[in-house]
């Protein structure tokens, strides 16, 4: 037994090997939560990026070489993410796409930066990620403050006077809730309730009962779609007809599956939905995706990872080099009006995406997400 243990340890140390090989391909890393709580997002990201790489390779790859996508699982957890990042840095990747979750992204930022690899995050909206001066960090996702601003505007515009704000204590949802709270107060809208639910539970009637007691005109929920779906459904079960507004994390087709008819009338803010991507390019790609995987991408975040991939390729192509500093420099300065799946893309000096991305959606009686006019 001892011997077999030793053999295992030996195998372990060998298995961790497999360093960089000769560069006859251009490697692009994808860091995504393939396991853990956000595995569904991660797997969507992987599908999109792999399909895009396939298409790009069919067009001849980049710099005349085929693209190889190297996927690492970050498990949706910062510690695993830092290992995944270290591993990608040893594989000679020219750029990294990902990941979903701000704190997970944050755990990997310094590692890529020190290794000189550009990182294009997709589902990471925390403000501070781009406030640290990393020159090779970009994101295709908008920032929380933009969404907060949008949320406050929308509430004001729809004429609600008493708002209840509910988040789920995650870094993202809390940040958005705080942002909206401050802006609403400034606008003179009364915030009658501010608290957090515990995600991953099934029964939120206790919370809804308390919310109802505060008697708001509207509820702003900044958390994720599974909880949003349940809140809507259970709210309806209580015969309570208050309107709900959700943040961009509620933008997921499963929301309607969970909430059923109760989803009708639900507002949410989001970058455009995959199916609302109106460019012919995006439409064609989604058709290909549907053909290959027999489903639509799980959410806009996976699409933003796809944009991240395209941007990474554009950077390499534009700089005519797989060198990180050069391609990052190109992305900062020279990339303008890049046709992404989610619309046109350009980055500011911090690496944030320029332009307003958010739209207001409303769920109609058939459960469709209908984009509202600006």
């Amino acid at each position, binding site marked *: 037994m001892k011997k077999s243990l030793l053999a295992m340890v030996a195998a372990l140390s060998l298995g961790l090997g497999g360093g960089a090989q000769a560069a006859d391909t251009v490697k692009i890393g994808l860091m995504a939560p393939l396991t853990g709580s956000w595995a569904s997002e991660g797997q969507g990201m992987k599908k999109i990026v792999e399909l895009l790489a396939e298409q790009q390779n069919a067009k001849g790859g980049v710099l005349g070489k085929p693209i190889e996508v190297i996927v690492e699982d970050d498990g949706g957890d910062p510690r695993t993410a830092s290992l995944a990042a270290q591993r990608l840095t*040893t594989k000679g990747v020219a750029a990294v796409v990902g990941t979903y979750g701000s704190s997970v992204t944050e755990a990997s930022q310094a590692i890529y930066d020190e290794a000189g690899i550009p990182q294009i995050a997709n589902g990471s909206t925390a403000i501070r990620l781009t406030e640290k001066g990393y020159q090779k960090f970009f994101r295709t996702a908008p920032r929380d403050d933009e969404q907060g601003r949008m949320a406050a505007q929308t509430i004001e515009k729809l004429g609600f006077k008493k708002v209840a704000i509910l988040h789920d204590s995650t870094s993202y949802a809390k940040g958005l809730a705080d942002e909206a709270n401050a802006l609403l107060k400034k606008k003179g809208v009364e915030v009658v309730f501010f608290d957090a639910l515990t995600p991953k539970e099934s029964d939120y009637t206790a919370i809804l009962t308390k919310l109802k007691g505060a008697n708001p005109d509207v509820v702003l929920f900044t958390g994720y779609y599974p909880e949003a779906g349940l809140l809507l459904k259970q709210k309806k079960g209580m015969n309570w007809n208050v309107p709900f507004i959700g943040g961009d994390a509620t933008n997921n087709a499963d929301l309607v599956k969970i909430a059923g008819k109760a989803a009708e009338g639900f507002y949410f803010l989001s970058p455009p939905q995959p199916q609302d991507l109106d460019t012919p390019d995006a439409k064609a790609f989604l058709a290909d995706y549907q053909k290959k995987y027999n489903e639509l991408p799980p959410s806009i975040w996976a699409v933003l990872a796809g944009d991240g991939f395209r941007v990474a390729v554009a950077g390499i192509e534009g700089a005519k080099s797989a060198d990180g500093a050069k391609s990052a420099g190109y992305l900062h300065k020279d990339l303008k009006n890049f046709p992404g799946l989610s619309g046109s893309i350009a980055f500011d000096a911090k690496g944030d995406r320029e332009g307003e991305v958010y739209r207001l959606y409303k769920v109609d009686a058939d459960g469709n997400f209908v984009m509202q006019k600006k």
Partner: protein
Amino acid sequence: MNRLTLSVVALVVAVLPFAPLFLNTYQVDVLNSIGLYALLALSLNLILGEAGLFDMGHAAFYAMGAYTAAILNTHYQIPILWTLPLSGLAAGAFALLVARPVIHLRGDYLMIVTIGVGEIVRIALVNDVFGITGGANGIFGISRPKLFGWVIRRPEEFFYLIWGFVALTIFLFLRLKQSRFGRALNYLREDEVAAEGSGIDTDAYKLAAFGLGAAWAGMAGTLFAAKMTIISPESFSFWESVMLFMIVILGGAGSVLGVLLAAFLVIGLPELFRELAGARMLVFGLVMMVMMVVRPQGLWPAQTPRISLAALTGARKP
């Protein structure tokens, strides 16, 4: 220890210091991760393995240390390594405080209480208790450690910091194991009533085990904070406590070398299975089950007897 294992241990000890020379940064970082978990598991081993107290909330003490270090560093600009003793003290004191009223609970009741303490700490951190933990965002901008003017930044550098601390821990804990204190923990693990009846203040020793184990976990937390430069509550979830628990039992409760070996496996295996992508945790769970079934006493159970016959005959000569 037989000759084969002795020579393998000697080989590992001889080779490990040179590991960064022939491993890439990722592999070194995996070793760093293993080292951190080895530290944590060794500290849990004092409580769970030596004293037999079911602690499934060890991440709370780890968090206590990491946050103490991070707050002292970011708010008061105390160099991160200087906070090492302070975060140890903070975690130890916290453990004494929370363990005091529940120290009489037995077995699984103590287990759920420690789980509860772990969750309460995590929830408190998420809700930004006292306004200093940064809530779900955690604390960022922790400065890099400096040792004699040398800024520790790269995984290769952390390797020596972490494994140096692991080596020191092993050295001290092995000695402690064979001391009056270490024996007292074993007595109360084996039979609390008999231990008390032999003149041992069992409550005091249970608390001491919690305090010392927590203090060590707190110091490991400091190293973690220094390495990550950002800490957030999700790094101290129930799952972390569960992993540490598994490491100690899988290694063989009370066995320092077993715990080390298990840290290699529990932290290393998921990395080894990276190629399996989505299935890697499935295989990991299966391997855990199988290893336990094949080696119910742990991979490398504690050695008995620990007082050698040579020591016995030596003692007889005045």
